[in-house]
């Protein structure tokens, strides 16, 4: 006969399979947790384990929640379940061999990972990719940004309960993946670029496909907006949920759409242009009060800006070689550089130290999702359990990148 009720469960007597509570309480001990409100009939707080395989945690992220009834007192993220030691592997591979590993980190935006790495090594070798290669790189990266945002929108809306956007976004994302497949043979982890330029010349129908895609997508994005932007329940579930102020965002090193939604007008493509971004004009969407709804509008606007960039890039794509003169065996001079690009999730940086040999001495990847996830604790304190799911969705984290 179940003689205990939920609220009288002291953390210690939870079934071990349920939560490793002693370990959980150790985790949470250091956090300065809000005291549960002393009510007339005081309900003691409960530790719930949003475990590694929870349906809404975008991969293997374990969040330990300390709840007072429904309110979240404190959270502790336990990560590392998907740690493959990419940086250790880098030290035992040559520069070109390491290139495919980079795609496996943020598998949703693999093209921009590749772009970051290739440009970092080019900077180390002090060589410049030819203009045509740069344009192709910009087109593919922006397409990838669109695909990443679409995937984000689909799963984010699904977490909050709206089922239909998921299918719309995945249908449109399919078009982009087709273009990638035709260009470089792979859909997700594309390995599209090489150090010094692009591997393949664009297949002969490339411009036609991209232009067809550019006319196909804008009404589709309006379709997503139609479904969600003015949907009262969507507004209610996202307005001032997971608010992060401008100062907190900067202090926490949050970057990308999450930072822009808090009012910081900063985008690496404009601040420190790389790979031919200086030739295109596009705006940077900025939010005002940094809540989930602002992040939603910022990302939707970014999708449209990406389309503008791709259209300009396709119109002005120059002819010419696609691969710079790169020595057969890449042995960059001794030294270290840090190069970062604007990935869909935020600032993706590569800090490469070379000791003159063919293998990098140290490759440090600065993952945007890892740093953005740190902001979860502040955004969620005092919110409800349903908001934790919404906030994890709006941070747009990919566990491959968080754990590396």
């Amino acid at each position, binding site marked *: 006969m179940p003689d205990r009720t939920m609220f009288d469960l002291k953390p210690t007597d939870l079934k071990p399979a349920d939560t490793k509570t002693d370990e959980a309480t150790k985790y949470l001990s250091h956090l300065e947790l809000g005291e549960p409100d002393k009510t007339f009939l005081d309900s003691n707080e409960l530790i*719930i384990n949003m475990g590694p395989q929870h349906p809404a945690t975008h991969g293997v992220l374990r969040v330990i929640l300390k709840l007072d009834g429904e309110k979240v007192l404190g959270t502790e993220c336990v990560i590392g379940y998907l740690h493959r030691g990419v940086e250790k592997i880098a030290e035992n591979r040559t520069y070109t061999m390491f290139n495919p590993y980079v795609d496996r980190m943020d598998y949703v935006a693999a093209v921009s990972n590749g772009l970051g790495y290739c440009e970092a090594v080019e900077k180390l070798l002090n060589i410049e990719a030819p203009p045509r290669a740069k344009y192709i790189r910009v087109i593919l990266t922006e397409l990838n940004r669109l695909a990443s945002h679409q995937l984000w929108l689909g799963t984010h809306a699904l977490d909050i*309960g709206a*089922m239909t956007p998921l299918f719309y976004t995945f249908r449109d994302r399919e078009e982009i993946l087709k273009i990638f497949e035709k260009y470089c043979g792979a859909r997700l982890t594309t390995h599209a670029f090489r150090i010094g330029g692009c591997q393949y010349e664009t297949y002969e129908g490339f411009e036609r496909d991209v232009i067809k895609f550019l006319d196909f997508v804008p009404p589709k994005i309006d379709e997503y907006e139609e479904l969600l932007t003015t*949907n009262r329940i*969507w507004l209610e579930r996202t307005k001032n949920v997971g608010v992060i102020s401008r100062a907190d965002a900067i202090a926490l090193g949050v970057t990308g759409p999450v930072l822009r939604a808090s009012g910081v007008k900063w985008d690496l493509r404009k601040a420190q242009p790389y790979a031919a971004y200086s030739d295109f004009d596009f705006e940077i969407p900025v939010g005002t009060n940094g809540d989930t709804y602002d992040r939603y509008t910022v990302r939707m606007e970014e999708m449209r800006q990406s389309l503008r960039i791709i259209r300009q890039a396709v119109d002005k794509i120059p002819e010419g070689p696609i691969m710079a003169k790169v020595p057969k065996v890449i042995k960059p001079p001794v030294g270290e550089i840090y190069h970062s690009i604007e990935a869909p999730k935020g600032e993706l940086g590569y800090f490469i130290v070379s000791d003159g040999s063919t293998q990098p001495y140290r490759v440090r990847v600065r993952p945007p999702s890892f740093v953005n996830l740190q902001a979860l604790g502040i955004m969620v304190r005092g919110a409800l359990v349903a908001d934790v799911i919404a906030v994890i969705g709006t941070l747009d984290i990919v566990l491959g990148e968080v754990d590396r």
Partner: protein
Amino acid sequence: MLDYITSYLSSNTTPGQAGNVFWATVYILVVFGGISVAVMAMNWLERKALAHFQIRLGPMRVGPHGLLQPIADAIKLMTKEDIIPAEADKFVFWIAPLIILCASFAVYIVIPFGPTHAITDLNIGILFMLGVSSLSVLGIVMAGWASNSHYPLIGALRSSAQMVSYEVAMGMAVVSAVLMTSLHGLGPYGVGVGTSGTGTLSMIGIVQAQQEQHVWFLFKFFPLGFIAFGIFAIAMVAETNRAPFDLPEAESELTAGFHTEYSGLRWSLFMLGEYAAMIAVSSIAVTLWLGGWYRPFPNTLTGETWDLVFSLFPGLTFLGLAAIAFVGVRRMPKHPYFRVQTIGLAGFGAVLGLIGLILFVPPVRNRIQDIFWFVAKVAGFMYLYIWYRATFPRYRFDQLMKVGWKVLLPIGIGVLILTAILGVVL
């Protein structure tokens, strides 16, 4: 014995009223059989319509266009192992789905499919309906408690709190509709205190009142009737834990709410109960606001020709369905693998066409008239349910309670007061 049976046929009252036990049981069997078939059809419709909303095909594999999918589901659920959690409370665990099922099916005793087509006509029809629908809360709480684990208990507490609070809002809307039955003016704003001066609670009485007043209560005192209907529509969606209010079984937070630990046949009882409750609650909305079994505009478009036109509708709809089926048959790919499916679909189309033709035969046509209109209106509501589910994201629990208590209830009381004032003043 025989005359006991035939005697009822002459008296045009409901079997319950005429105290005729035999016909009452016949009606009960017909209604409950009809509801189970309707639940199966509703299940198929929901999966297909939801799929087409989301630009996918939905079940296509089992039978032509997935027509046999509900049957396949039913068999699967029957044969699945029925797990009872270790420390669960056997008796409470076993009885919970039964209570929900009985509660949602008991409502059908009162629902009038036609002037005489109702199991019985309690003169407290609406009150009985409200009472019984509040019983299903018990079932949910017991289901949550008996599964003896965190998440079902939280899910059960949440959904019972939700149902209790939306019952209040639903009650307000119903009372304002019942209030309108006591008025006797014609047309939307006509009013005059009738002879008895008091309305009726009995469902058939309400529908007849709408007939006498030549207006559906939806349009009575125009904004008020409509607002009351709106409140009832929202409350009924919340009452059956559907669409924007389906928080208890919100997958993203609490895995699957109060029926997490159930499986196999017991779980299908929950589903059966939920769909039956959906049909029941929407048929009450139809009775109260959309003029039950009367065809649209019974009073304005009267006269022989109009009656004939409206009476053809049932036959036409079935023929239309048959036509759709045949279009499906023609578009079926010619591959031999699909031959069985084309034959099946063609047979199904033929059956529908046959029913359509039968419905044109005059005696059948008149008798089927009111049942058809009632079912058509309820079907409209069912489609609304699916539409909600496709478009709306989910409310958070506190927002859900806020809407229930701070929005629906005040408006409900406001509408009630205004209807009363208008009823007296006009």
